[in-house]
């Protein structure tokens, strides 16, 4: 077992960065998470996770072009690094393996 730790929200952010592929920056990620999960997400929470993931080396980033809808400011576009993919895969694997280990009996609730 590797020691890569990924928080629940971090994992969602990492996944969403992958989903948005070419246009993964904070605002778009915030909206995408809100749309897909239905939970209300604040942009500062997303910022926090993005920078932390970058620090851990799971994300890479570059600056995009200035846009008028952002008051002429550039945005930081994120992309997944190979290490990020590894972290995601490991996390998924762990979950799947744990899930398959649950005995069927645990899901048989006695009615009444």
């Amino acid at each position, binding site marked *: 077992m590797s020691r890569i730790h990924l928080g629940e929200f971090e994992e969602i952010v990492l996944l969403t960065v992958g989903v948005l592929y070419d246009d993964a920056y904070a605002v778009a990620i915030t909206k995408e998470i809100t749309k897909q999960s239905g939970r209300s997400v604040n942009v500062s929470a997303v910022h926090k996770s993005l920078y932390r993931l970058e620090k851990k080396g799971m994300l890479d980033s570059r600056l995009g072009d200035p846009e008028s809808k952002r008051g002429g*400011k550039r945005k930081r576009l994120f992309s997944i690094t190979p290490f990020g993919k590894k972290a995601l895969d490991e996390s998924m694997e762990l979950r799947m393996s744990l899930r398959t280990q649950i005995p069927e009996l645990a899901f048989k609730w006695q009615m009444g």
Partner: protein
Amino acid sequence: MNKQINIPKIPHTFFKWYCRQERYEELHGDLEEFFYERAAEKGLSRARLYYLLDVIRCCQPYAWKKTKGQTNSNLIMFRNYYFTATRNLVKHKNYFLLNISGLAIGIASFILISLYLVNELSYDRFHANFENTYRVQTKGNINGQIVDWATSNPPLAKTLLNEYPETARATRIRRSGSWFISREDQKFYEDGVLFADSTFFQVFDFKLLAGDPKTALVHPRSMVLTETYARKYFGDEDPMGKEIAVEQDTIFYKVTGIAENIPANSHIQFDMLGSMSSYDEWNDDGWVDSGINYTYVVLHENAVIASLEEKIQEIIPKYIGPEIEYYTGRTYAEWQKAGNSTSFYLMPLKKIHLQSEASNDLGVPGNSSYLYIYGLVGIIILFIAIFNFVNLATAQSATRAREVGVRKVMGSTKTALVYQFIFESVIVSLIATVLAVIIVVVVMPSFIDLVGKELAFSMGSSYLGPLLIVGLAFMVGFLAGCYPAFVLSTFQPVEVLKGTLRPGSKSGWMRNFLVIIQFTASIMIITGTLVIYHQIDFMLTKNLGFDKEQILVVRKPELLKTHLDAFKNDLLQNPAIKTVVNSKTIPGKEYAKRSYRKQGAPETFLFMHNHVNFDYRELMGLELVSGRFFSKAHKQDTNAVVINVAAAKAFGFEDPIGQKLTTPWKPGQLVEIIGVVKDYHTESLHKRIEPIALELIPNNTSGYVSMKISNGEAIRETIAYVQDTWSKHTDKPFDYFFFDEDYEHLYRSEATTGQIFVVFAILSIFIACLGLIGLITFTASVRKKEIGIRKVLGAGTRSLIRLLSNDIVRPMMIATLLACPIAFLASDYWLQNFASRISISPWSYILSTCIVILIGSIAISFQTIKATRNNPVDSLRQE
């Protein structure tokens, strides 16, 4: 909307301050993107609020500037301060609760009063052109009467637009009493009906949810409804293009627009707005017009107001002069020579609510002198709460003295200690502010009831609101903390650690001083409350010259048409109903004016005019001075007039009875004065008694039917009887009120002020008493040992109580001496608003002083008695 979508400045500056340079662009870009999007979707004010929240949420380590070593140690010290503060607060729970509740109430009162003031000051500023919009008002001297009207002549708007290039746009609004509106089975009298020119929505920025603002009021019989009224008459249907009946089911108006509900801070309030073009007589070129017509103009930005004001006076000789000649029979020059004058002046839209003193205004005008009073009361209450904090903190200083000593020995500087204690009080004030905000939210509905009007703002309606409240918390914390911080930080470590410092001994004079100020302020507020109540009571019970008790008034008897007499006769069948009279108007309602002239004399007099029936004198209890009242026995009474003493004086008659008058309303006929009644008030006591002329009512004039009903428990049945009788004669709705209740409405703003004062007077004394309780509890605990020894040596309870309360009773005495002259001057200033006023009796002061001392003594008595009854063994065994 003219406003530009800009990033709010203050939060932006804050963001720039904390955000590290290299991340500013990307982070703020994100926030800006959200801001512009929300501004487009949810409106600017919501977007600003969310932006502020975002800025606060983003204030996290990832965005901060990289800290250098120095600031880090500061941060650690602050953490230490924070822990010391919270531990200390928890340790002295009782004082903390006293402090917090006092501060929270004080801050909540301050926020509520501020919201009210902001509402009053923001009137009519939501129109894009409010800076250049003016109302043309009329001022003059007509037959010895100074007049100041918010209204002006109907053709003025057109003339200004055509002949004065400074005028960019103009519109007229007309008020015309209440209207009977119906649609299917929804039938109501509506008071909120106004009529306006088609240019209305170009001058004012009331938003239309449906309909075209340019064309909504063009066609005759068009009607714009507000959202609420659209729902009232049409439910869930779409009202656009549908018809609604106005007056007697004979005229149908088409709904051409739905307006957003009118903001509370607009002096123009309407529920329904009809097109001015509906009635031809409102649009002819007659300048002299008895209706209530307002003219609003938008001027070009470079227009010079003073010179325009001067120029428009030409209109008077040019257009109004000839009509004056027609009505008075004198040329304009002659009319002017007799001392008459009239002129127009421009009243800026933004000042109408608070500064226009003109009569006949559209909305209920505000009163700027009350605003000062409210503002003052708010600040006073806040400071009473702050002083509590200062007093308790300095009194408690001894408990912190050792800490200060140790900190100083360990190398803390004086400045660092000042920071520490201010930081502590800011923490307390922040907690108090959070509580205050909760209080404000909870009591808001009752506060709206109290002030009697909706407020256009709440704490969160602008991003500035939360920001200002946080600012307020810091300010209060700073003000409350700086004096105690100063006292505490000057302790000498040697003195403190040796234990020679007597607890609370320092700054005793300051505490006394603050207690004096607190009680002076409380006594002033209570005296003010008493004076206001006396004046209101005086106005309601003063002999007005007429009788207003037990009179039931029915509106709109003209709906009965020919059944009016039958209705009146039927009413008299009931033994509970004594006199039934119809009249054009009654005291407290609007009076028309008519001009009279002595036969053969040149000067005209303008009198308040009323049409009345035979028994009017009996019903109102008017006293005859000479002559007689109208009587069925005299056939010529249709050409007779009864005047009051003031009118007789105006004419200068020695013996008015039998004098002949002429009036333009009865051309070619002479009117004879048959009686003179004693003066009586027709308006509120703010105003002087005016000359009045009464004439006999012609058949079927609109107005009121008033009836005297006998005193008794059967009032409900009597009303039911009147209503039944009414519905026997007509199917129109029945509408009644009691005369005395209606008259009391004239004093609404005084009554409101009185109620507001009562509430805040109670709060101020309550907060001051909280402080007292804190102080006395503390004194008792500090002198516990002293009390024990005194008791052992034989001191009685009474002498101990005297000992303990001495420190507090003395400042209270001084406060009463100080408060009296200040309160006298303040209430005298307020009473100058009234033409008839009370003289201030010394009892008001004595009473309020007694109240304060009594409440203060009760507050401290529990603690003192508790302290003196302690068993001395317990207090002396301590060590």
